């Protein structure tokens, strides 16, 4: 018999095929297993994710990943009581494979289907690590694909997007700067490594959308494209002048600008909305300077900081299982079997 409290989560918004099993409890949901297959190696040589390659990989990985997840959790598929799947945002081809698989499971097992929001999943996954969210939390979701500031009144039903990036995502800016500094793709982790050896105050790079004139419209929005250009100009000027410069210093100064803007705006949002818990999620939360500065500024402001371990910050099934478990717990109505995937699913929609 299906167990209404056992949720299977499927994530396929980009290059990772993720499947997780999460059990719903009143006091905090429990992750039974989380299995991820990635096609990243196939994309690296192209310098970016190739949607068609990712989609083909999702098709081939789906049944093996489902099988492994069930084996690891020692769960019979017939025990699953609900299926949650990423409905968006993400790449259409990859999203389509996951959604079709989830629907087939819902029909084959005769259980409800929940199409959920990937970005909100990046916040929800922290409930599996640090327990249920208090009444109101702020969530900063930063990765190669997203940079969003979310006010979470209820993770299952009531999320407000306070701001987002107007151009590049934080991780994307890191990759682009990595490329212009001649580092291999993806450049983010390389910059982070270099930055740890450099002086973050060596160069004062601009802080996007922090000027007084931007406060009215873009208090909680981000922009990293001007910063990327500033780094490029600075490096070119040095090279044109034949001057030597320290790559670690440039990396550290660039990373400092990103971390400064992200944390300053987030802390300001917590203050103005009377929120005392901050959740940071998404793959970019692995960034050293962001972690350090967030910890320092949250401590100063009396804000509790929750960052899940990095393996839960990257794209995975656990985040979708976590959000699925939250919406099941909240009694949210299931999605329709004909749910469409939405590559730019709005962050006001937790489910479809």
């Amino acid at each position, binding site marked *: 018999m299906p167990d209404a409290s056992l949720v299977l989560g499927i994530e396929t918004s980009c290059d990772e095929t993720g499947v997780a099993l999460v059990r719903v409890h009143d006091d905090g949901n429990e992750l039974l297993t989380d299995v991820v297959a990635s096609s990243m190696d196939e994309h690296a040589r192209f310098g970016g994710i190739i949607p068609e390659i990712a989609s083909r990989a999702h098709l081939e990985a789906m049944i093996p990943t489902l099988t492994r997840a069930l084996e690891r959790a020692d769960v019979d598929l017939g025990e699953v009581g609900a299926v949650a799947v990423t409905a968006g945002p993400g790449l259409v081809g990859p999203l389509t494979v996951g959604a079709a*698989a989830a629907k087939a499971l819902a029909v084959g097992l005769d259980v409800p289907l929940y199409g959920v929001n990937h970005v909100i999943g990046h916040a929800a996954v922290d409930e599996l690590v640090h327990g249920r969210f208090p009444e109101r939390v702020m969530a900063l979701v930063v990765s190669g694909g997203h940079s969003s500031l979310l006010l979470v009144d209820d993770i299952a039903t009531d999320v407000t997007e306070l701001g987002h990036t107007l151009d590049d995502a934080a991780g994307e800016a890191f990759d682009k700067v990595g490329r212009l500094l001649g580092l291999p793709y993806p450049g983010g982790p390389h910059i982070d490594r270099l930055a740890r050896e450099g002086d973050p105050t060596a160069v004062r790079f601009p802080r996007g959308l922090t000027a007084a004139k931007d406060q009215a419209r873009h208090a909680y929005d981000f922009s990293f494209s001007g910063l990327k250009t500033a780094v490029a100009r600075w490096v070119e000027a040095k090279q044109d002048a034949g001057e030597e410069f320290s790559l670690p210093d440039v990396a550290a100064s660039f990373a400092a600008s990103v971390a400064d803007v992200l944390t300053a705006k987030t802390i300001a949002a917590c203050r103005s909305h009377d929120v005392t818990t901050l959740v940071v999620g998404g*793959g970019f939360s692995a960034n050293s300077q962001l972690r350090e500065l967030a910890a320092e500024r949250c401590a100063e402001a009396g804000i509790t900081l929750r960052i899940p371990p990095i393996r839960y910050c990257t794209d995975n099934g656990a985040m979708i299982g976590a959000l699925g478990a939250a919406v099941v717990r909240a009694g949210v109505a299931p999605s329709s079997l*004909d749910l*469409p995937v939405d590559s730019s699913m709005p962050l006001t929609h937790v489910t479809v």
Partner: protein
Amino acid sequence: MPVLALDTSADIGVCLIQPSPGPGPGSSSGPAGAPASWRMPVVLAERRVTEQRRHAELLAPLVAEVLAEAGTDRREVTAVVVGTGPAPFTGLRAGLVTARTLAFALGVPVHGVSSLDALAAQAFAAGLAGEEVLVVTDARRREVYAARYRRRGPAGPDGPVIASGGTAGAAADATAPDVAPGAGWLPDVELLAGPLVDHAEALAAEAARPGTVIVGPGGLIYPEHLPLTPGAPLLVEPAVLAALALARAARGDALPTEPLYLRRPDVVPSAARKRATG
């Protein structure tokens, strides 16, 4: 022992059939030990949506609908059959992942059959003249998917068939459509060339070979190079896919569900670039 069959190589077709093992009237004997033919399967319920885009949205609801209409509990389904293309990527994948995952959820086997095989078998079953069939379907980008077939086994009207004799047990159900309307028998088919993807013009010489019957929607799009034979089937019948799959499975053939993409992926990185730790 109902079998669910679906195809998303062009539009969306889903059906639930009841196979009828045992020799149909007039069938020849097959290879040692294997049943040579069935009576025509009964189509319990069928859905077709002439939509080329929203496969992943519409497919699962259609599966649920045919089960409901047939009054068949999902746990009674004994196999899932899927058309493996060739077809444009996204719709084909929606069909394949649906079939594989549904079979996984039901704990039953999943069988793959080329969607072009079904059109070829339909052409022979429709009694179209000709020794060979050239199947052409729309590959978009001004190209077609193509494959050439003949009947499996000795050619001619006396060759072996995999299903015949009308719909067994369907006499009471006048609304059940025949799997292969017309001839009342269905042969298996043998691939002679292809499948491949090419410009219609490049296939014109092949299409002009004497005795070639041309079928499939590619002929509607490029009539100057691929003139359709009158009465040519244009839509893949999922029930024919199912009949082919069951006959082949009974023979012990492997029926993989690998997609027939026939094209390499376009390697343009997505605009929304993402780092490894996304």
